[in-house]
């Protein structure tokens, strides 16, 4: 470890290390953040859900958007994998099917940033235990 020589150096280090615990801070006030759940059952993973999830995590982080990306089990729409469920705080969750990288990008640009829904919504016929 190198010595910290000044207050400016300390602040620099602080910004660097903050990202390591940011996820925990987000979890502490999750109800105020945009949540994206990626369906990661066998069907999802086989269709590339892992890549979709990684893309969401990296792109949102890159753009500095505070959101929580988690994985979840099969939502039952195996024909439309990868599927994601997007929840804007205070609104009903929305499920998207066939979320490729391009679709994910569109969702981030339109739905996450501007709160405008895009094509590809699957009407949900279930309600989750949480709500």
């Amino acid at each position: 470890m190198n010595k910290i020589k000044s207050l400016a150096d300390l602040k620099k280090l602080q910004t660097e290390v903050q990202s390591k615990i940011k996820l925990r801070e987000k979890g502490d006030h999750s109800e105020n953040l945009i949540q994206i759940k990626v369906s990661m059952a066998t069907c999802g993973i086989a269709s590339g859900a892992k890549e979709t999830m990684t893309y969401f995590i990296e792109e949102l982080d890159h753009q500095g958007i505070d959101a929580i990306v988690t994985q979840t089990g099969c939502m039952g729409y195996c024909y439309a994998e990868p599927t994601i469920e997007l929840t804007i705080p205070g609104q009903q969750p929305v499920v998207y099917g066939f979320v490729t990288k391009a679709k994910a990008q569109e969702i981030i640009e339109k739905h996450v940033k501007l709160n405008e829904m895009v094509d590809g919504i699957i009407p949900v016929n279930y309600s989750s235990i949480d709500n």
Partner: protein
Amino acid sequence: MAEYNMHILVCGGTGCKASQSELIKSNFKTRLNEFGLSDEIQVIMTGCFGFCEKGPIVKILPDNTFYTQVTPEDVSEIVEEHIIKGRKVERLLYKDPESKEHISDTKGMDFYKKQIRIALRNCGFINPENIDEYIGRDGYAALGTCLSEITPDEVIRMIKDSGLRGRGGGGFPTGLKWELTRKSVADQKYVVCNADEGDPGAFMDRSILEGDPHSVLEAMAICGYCIGADKGLVYIRAEYPLAIERLKIAIKQAREYGLLGDDILGTGFNFDVEIRYGAGAFVCGEETALIHSMEGKRGEPTVKPPFPAEKGYNGKPTNVNNVETFANIPVII
């Protein structure tokens, strides 16, 4: 992937450690490794969550799921069900004693609902053995700001204005104590942290030292800056092995970063901390007795005045504050 997408926090307080939380942590690591998830999911041992009654505690973020009374055998189920399939393990969630419902989030629990954590702000959140995590939570920023931008008198005024009083039980205004020690003239002064927690069943100081030792070190350095001391001593009972170990690690890391030692942050201010062990005499929690014990004398209180602020350790002006009092200081600044 460069960043972890999930954090598993395992409680590493004395209570949970006694219930095998160390094994729980290593089981998590093994299972995650088997599934090839070690690069995506981080397992951290934190300080006490304060809910020892239902320990060992495991918290999973960002889903914010709070598992209670986890056994090492439960780990596989959590990994296979929750981590991989996204299904919470219902039977390990906290059960509300009145409604009999399972609650997954601490915010829904009566125990945590009304808590605002100040002194315990980092307990159960950061890894106490990693200084970077403390720095990430604004750690040492208060010290840095004091040394570079605020005069000792102003810092003392801030502490006075905050209304902070001795959290050891005496309730003496902390700012006033610092001011008195500052006014004493001497070639050497000392900052002493009283970690001789003796009341049966009390563990606030232990929780802080085990869960967030850097907050105490930072505050001691701030105190040293205010009163003009370059030496700090932590008087801690030898029955707190985990607190001592974590404190030692913290001191070592702070020295490596130059946050303790000579010329801190290039400001010319020197401050270092040493540990002194108590043998566990209740009376040594009283400041004059504590000082005598540190000097190697019989741990007996003496009549004040002279107050330690005038004549304390080795006859030099000494400022004695309790662990919890110190833990509140960085937040005030």
